């Protein structure tokens, strides 16, 4: 019988052949922790678990990305404590303020490779599936246990297969496929399961991260894009096996896919852009681990080139990483965004969780390239958040209402 990616990776991590439904205790390859949860993880590790040191100082990555740079004295103090702890534990990998969001950064740094098992203190740790790693988000206690032991417990998940066919129309991109999948599977459609994305060998790993991070929005434990087309070296044992058993399969014809928009206040409340009517927008926010990469800024710049933001519009761009920012600076993308009237924030999570750098006021409408539009996520619980692609974000920034990118191309 063939194995899914989840079964292949967890079999390797467990040291024996395992299949969906089994409970396993597994060795992890890497533990990621970020500023938001690190203080409580550190406390749990030492005070509650009584462990003095992390199990392997080379296999822990600490990232200051959630509120970076700190917005309050208390956050600054806590980040200071995290840095001191990293020094005291002699941990090799600390990515401090400005380096960017943990998920892309750990891939850029080469710390996450195809076939690895990674646990992170963040639900979008599914993002490591961009390079076909099994990434799973966990809470404080699980991460503290993994730090102490190098192990975790898992139920080997069933797998939901998303098969794409064909190529996107202009103005349509991986975000639209991801939102289409949440629309089709619904918010709980892959709970306890792993999602495999097939049929997108043409995608760069950052576009794959869009799909992998959205996997948690259908409840998944991990979300992995098939390795075909990756420039990373893929271990020989990690491959698509014909006989693998999937609990469910869905298919998407990319050539007929329209831009998708997720309407407040749930991620799976998705419509074709053409069906939502005219929605006026106050602020366009381009960023996050889902769509704040260099390619996303380029996609937006291609639409914004030679244009200006609509009257009264704000556009906030927060690059996902310093590498993305540097690329955008080098190739002129940044200049196009600035000339259009956008503002650029420090690489990191920005306002994605409503703590700083562009939180929303009551009754404001935001067109967001991120992954969650829950009530209150980006600030006021009375704000409305619509999720869409970088292309839709840029077109919307120009017109002031949620706009199909094709509409602008046609009129220019």
């Amino acid at each position: 019988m063939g194995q899914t990616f989840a079964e292949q990776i967890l079999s390797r991590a467990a040291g024996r052949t395992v299949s969906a439904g089994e409970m396993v205790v597994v060795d992890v390859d890497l533990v990621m922790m970020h500023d938001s949860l690190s203080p409580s993880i550190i406390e749990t590790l030492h005070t509650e678990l009584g462990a003095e040191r992390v199990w392997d100082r080379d296999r822990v990555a600490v990232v200051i990305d959630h509120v970076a740079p700190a917005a309050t004295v208390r956050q600054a103090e806590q980040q200071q404590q995290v840095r001191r702890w990293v020094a005291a534990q002699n941990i090799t990998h600390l990515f401090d303020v400005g380096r960017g969001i943990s998920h892309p950064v750990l891939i850029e740094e080469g710390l996450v490779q195809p076939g690895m098992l990674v646990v992170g203190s963040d639900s979008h740790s599914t993002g490591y599936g961009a390079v076909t790693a099994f990434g799973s988000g966990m809470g404080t206690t699980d991460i503290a246990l993994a730090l102490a032991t190098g192990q975790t417990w898992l139920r080997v998940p069933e797998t939901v297969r998303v098969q794409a066919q064909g190529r996107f129309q202009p103005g349509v991109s991986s975000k639209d496929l991801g939102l289409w999948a949440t629309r089709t599977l619904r918010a709980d459609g892959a709970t306890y399961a792993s999602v495999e994305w097939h049929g997108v060998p043409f995608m760069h790993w950052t576009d794959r991260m869009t799909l992998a991070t959205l996997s948690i929005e259908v409840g998944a434990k991990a979300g992995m894009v098939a390795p075909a087309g990756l420039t990373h070296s893929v271990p020989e044992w990690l491959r698509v096996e014909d006989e693998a058993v999937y609990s469910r399969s869905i298919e998407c014809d990319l050539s007929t896919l329209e831009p998708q928009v997720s309407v407040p206040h749930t991620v799976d409340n998705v419509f074709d852009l053409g069906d939502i009517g005219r929605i006026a927008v106050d602020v366009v926010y381009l960023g996050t681990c889902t769509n704040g990469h260099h390619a996303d800024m380029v996609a937006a710049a291609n639409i914004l080139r030679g244009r200006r933001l609509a009257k009264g519009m704000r556009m906030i761009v927060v690059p996902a990483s310093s590498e993305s920012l540097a690329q955008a600076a080098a190739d002129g993308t940044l200049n196009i965004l600035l000339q259009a009237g956008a503002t650029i924030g420090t690489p990191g999570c920005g306002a994605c969780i409503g703590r700083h750098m562009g939180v929303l006021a009551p009754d404001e409408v935001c067109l967001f390239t991120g992954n969650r539009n829950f009530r209150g996520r980006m600030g006021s619980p009375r704000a409305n958040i619509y999720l869409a692609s970088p292309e839709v974000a840029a077109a919307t920034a120009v017109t002031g209402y949620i706009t199909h990118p094709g509409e602008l191309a046609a009129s220019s």
Partner: protein
Amino acid sequence: MPRIWVFGTDVNTDQIVPGRYAPYMLSADDDVRRYAFVEARPEFAGAVQPGDILVAGPNFGCGSSREYAPLALKRSQVGAIIAPLFARIFFRNALNLGIPCFTADLREQLADGDEVSFDVASGTIGRADGQALHLPAPAAWMREVWNEGGIVPFYRRHGRFPSTGA
């Protein structure tokens, strides 16, 4: 007597505790317990009593990995959470903290404000009209974790992860 609190479908971690009230965002002497359902159900934090039971629709706890969502419920001494489907990360966080979660849909049998009796060991809820509701039994290893008060006390005592039968 435990009181029943009924919640809807897809209750997410931002509804349980909005990110703005993360312990990280609070002053050191504040307690995240005070912000349980602060916007979704503002009367909850003030009125919840130890042992009270949450009865919800599918996909309870979806959203982020923030453990302070179940932590706020643990500090409120919630006796159990019952839903037909739990979001994965919430489920493991709650288990790790020792909060009994039962997978069942009791929204037809129980109403908000009902007073019931509850025996966690047998998984039995007694309604005021005398009817007993039996919850599905959890895996033995989960009950072991509940009995120890969470995975940390379990680990400290046994020096290993619970035996999952493998």
